[in-house]
């Protein structure tokens, strides 16, 4: 019995620990969770909450994690001015749950995003200004959010970074870019054997892509940016550099969530999803960023968004040295553009 007493005490300590704690300051770091429809999603808020301005990262994947965006550079160059919200979507990163795979779909995630914003405003004040930044798959999720009901009124700005709002168009643009750049590289005698394989595939697969073709094109696109020396490679060593142990990353959770979400059946539905036809409703100021060497979500996607949204307050900028991860591969460019956009619209 004596052995059980400390655990009983511990139980009450743990349950009483889950009391609301929020900090308004210039160097904040706090984690809380949003529980919605069988998923508990991790939110890490870091930086200057006193600014009442929040940059919300909507990560890629599906199934990646916001941990990857939390770099020292962003801490030193954005978090010092504004608060940054690192949100792990359902079945991703440090988010937790039981048998919740049935709820892993775009409408549910769009609802999650809306509730994340409502929660930030609840915690830090309804007058908080929120900017959402969609990266890669996060582009599709933010496009879904921005074009649904009156959601866009909840945010002050939309940042679209190496994003995709139209997966069929994405496949077409990826193939086109792989084919064009590949043929140029072969003429220049650079990585000829690799490019030949890619160019041959693109010549054989010309359109109306199946899911398997889409996956193969993405795989070639991931490889393609590594053939250019000017593009900083993001690999396992980069992530180890983050020192995940020191920062308390739940590494196995991140890996198993990524594996599950990447292979989840809803990816087949996403492959047919597009928001180009709905973008006319967007009147929110928008910043579009992409890397010159992004084959995964080529710049044509940003141009499509730019041409379709119904606002004159929009800007499109290209990083000349970045691939698909502009916030990691061209950090100074990314922070400069994001800060300037937020500063002029907060």
């Amino acid at each position, binding site marked *: 019995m004596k*052995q*059980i007493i400390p*655990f009983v005490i*511990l*139980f009450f300590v*743990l*349950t009483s*620990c*889950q*009391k*609301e*704690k929020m900090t308004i300051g210039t160097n904040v770091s*706090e*984690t*809380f*969770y*949003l*529980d*919605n429809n069988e*998923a*508990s999603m*991790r*939110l*890490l808020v870091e930086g200057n909450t006193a600014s009442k301005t929040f940059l919300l990262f909507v990560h890629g994947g599906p199934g990646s994690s916001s941990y990857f965006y939390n770099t020292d550079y962003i801490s030193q160059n954005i978090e010092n001015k504004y608060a940054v919200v690192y949100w792990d979507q*359902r*079945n991703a990163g*440090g*988010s*937790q*749950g*039981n*048998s*919740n*795979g049935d709820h*892993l779909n775009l409408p549910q995630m769009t609802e999650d995003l809306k*509730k994340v914003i*409502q*929660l930030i405003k*609840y915690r830090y004040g309804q007058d908080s200004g929120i900017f959402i930044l969609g990266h890669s798959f996060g582009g599709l999720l933010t496009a879904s959010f921005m074009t649904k009901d009156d959601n866009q009124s909840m945010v002050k700005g939309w940042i679209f970074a190496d994003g995709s709002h139209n997966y069929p168009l994405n496949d077409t643009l990826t193939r086109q870019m792989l084919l064009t750049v590949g043929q140029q590289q072969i003429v220049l005698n650079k990585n000829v054997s690799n490019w030949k394989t890619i160019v041959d595939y693109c010549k054989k697969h010309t359109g109306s892509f199946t899911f398997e073709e889409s996956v193969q094109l993405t795989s070639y696109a991931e490889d393609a940016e590594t053939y250019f020396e000017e593009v900083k490679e993001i690999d396992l060593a980069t992530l180890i550099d983050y020192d995940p*142990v*020191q920062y*308390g990353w*739940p590494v*196995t*959770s991140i890996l*198993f*969530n990524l*594996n*599950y979400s990447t292979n989840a059946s809803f990816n087949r539905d996403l492959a047919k999803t597009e928001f180009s036809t709905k973008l006319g409703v967007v009147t929110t100021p928008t910043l579009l960023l992409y890397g010159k060497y992004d084959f995964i979500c080529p710049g044509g996607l940003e141009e499509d968004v730019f041409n379709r949204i119904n606002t004159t307050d929009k800007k499109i900028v290209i990083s000349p040295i970045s691939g698909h991860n502009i916030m990691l591969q061209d950090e100074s460019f990314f922070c400069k553009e994001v800060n300037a956009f937020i500063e002029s619209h907060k």
Partner: protein
Amino acid sequence: MRFLKLYLILVISSCSIPCFSQSIDSVWVEKKSSNLSVSYISSLIYPGAKLGIELPVNAIYISKIGKSGKTKDFTKDRFVTANLSWYHHPAFNDNVYLSVGWTMRRTKSNGFLTEFSPEVGLSRTFLGGTTYQVDDNGNVSIKKCAGYYYALVSVGGGIGYDFSKTKRQPFSIFSKFNVFMLFPYNSTIYLRPVLEVGLIYKPVNFLSLKVKSKSRKK
């Protein structure tokens, strides 16, 4: 038919040779005390603790004559174990789990021991931060005791030293490496390595149970 008989005799005799080579000298029933264990568990840098009880099931005392002619004595103990564990992973979760297991321990006469133990159990996590719910009207509330129940499977193996063998002290120290799996975790699994360092206390008479013991000479 004659060949079949001969074949059967050969098969039976070939099976019986190794059986008879492990002769059991005696079997008896003895009362053995249960053990208590306490350990520090750590997954990478995240701390935790474990309390357990080991209920004896059987013991085999083996005396083996080596090639050099030297006799090696060791004991094989089997226990049913029950453990209550907890660890704290900041900003992720606290996990409290109850497990039952089957421990196979081999202790040499010089006190050195090795063990292997599979376990099954139930885990309850407590999320590492205030947990909110937002209803469809945007009303926010706090969810108390937010976390999840998971089924748990664990395997572990380790080494240690039994001070009762050489120094007549009623305890052992051990270090163990475990890997446990929680499921269903976000419709998949969650794996976690856990390093354990602990102490087993062997009271003289605590929850004593009658166990079948064997003495065997090889």
